[in-house]
């Protein structure tokens, strides 16, 4: 007798959100995601803070990361984040779903130049 239900596979949107955020947090200079509700990707079951993934009309998804950073050159940091996200999405088999990766620095924190995780 089968017991319990199957866990539904996460949507591409949610997978992209997780992959993008995890990748961004590994970049030195990224302190963390912002916690605001409007900057999160959420379903009824899950919530990924600091990343907003929105479907485009070409089957790809626009990824916007809303981050808190250390006080470092932010455009270089954004480029490194973008590279890391693209690499992680490719490794996860999500390269074709990945559209533009926007990086929004919402705040900076002095003395927090830690690498992510």
């Amino acid at each position: 007798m089968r017991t319990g239900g199957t866990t539904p596979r996460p949507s591409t949107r949610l997978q992209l959100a997780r992959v993008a955020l995890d990748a961004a947090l590994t970049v030195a200079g990224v302190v963390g995601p912002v916690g605001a509700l409007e900057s999160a990707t959420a379903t009824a079951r899950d919530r990924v803070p600091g990343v907003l993934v929105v479907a485009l009309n070409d089957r790809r998804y626009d990824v916007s990361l809303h981050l808190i950073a250390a006080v470092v050159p932010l455009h270089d940091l954004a480029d490194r984040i973008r590279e890391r996200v693209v690499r992680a999405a490719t490794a996860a088999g999500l390269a074709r779903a990945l559209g533009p990766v926007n990086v929004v620095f919402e705040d900076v924190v002095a003395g927090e130049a830690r690498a992510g995780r």
Partner: protein
Amino acid sequence: MAEEPRSRKTASQAVTAGEEISPLAAERGATRIADAVVTKVAGIATHEVPGVYALGGGAARAIGTMTQAVGMSARTAQGVSVEVGEREAAVDLTIVVDYGESIPRVAQEVRENVIRRIEGITGLSVTEVNVTVDDLHVPGEEEEAPARVE
């Protein structure tokens, strides 16, 4: 179940619409820097200059002391006002200078350091940094209240 594409505005859409904060388009997406970031960088850069005792006018400092005590604000934001465009930023600062320091020298160093830090960190070009010296800090003038608990 397939999810409905959402109608919320993304960063790139906001950039296209010319909204808010400084967008800089890159090949694979845009980078935006919030006003709060420019404000904080300006505040930190100001504090780095010897001779600057505090940021903000009297009222701002009093309110800042209270809000910091309850963790609601950073000392780097008070006394700083920024105007941020797509590529440029203008900064207004209100500072308190230590008594005995040369005010023109401190103001000039603040200006140079704020420009260097904002341009280096955010890539924005700083068009002006206006410095208002609101007060002088004289040592002993405002004794810190003794701690009530150890």
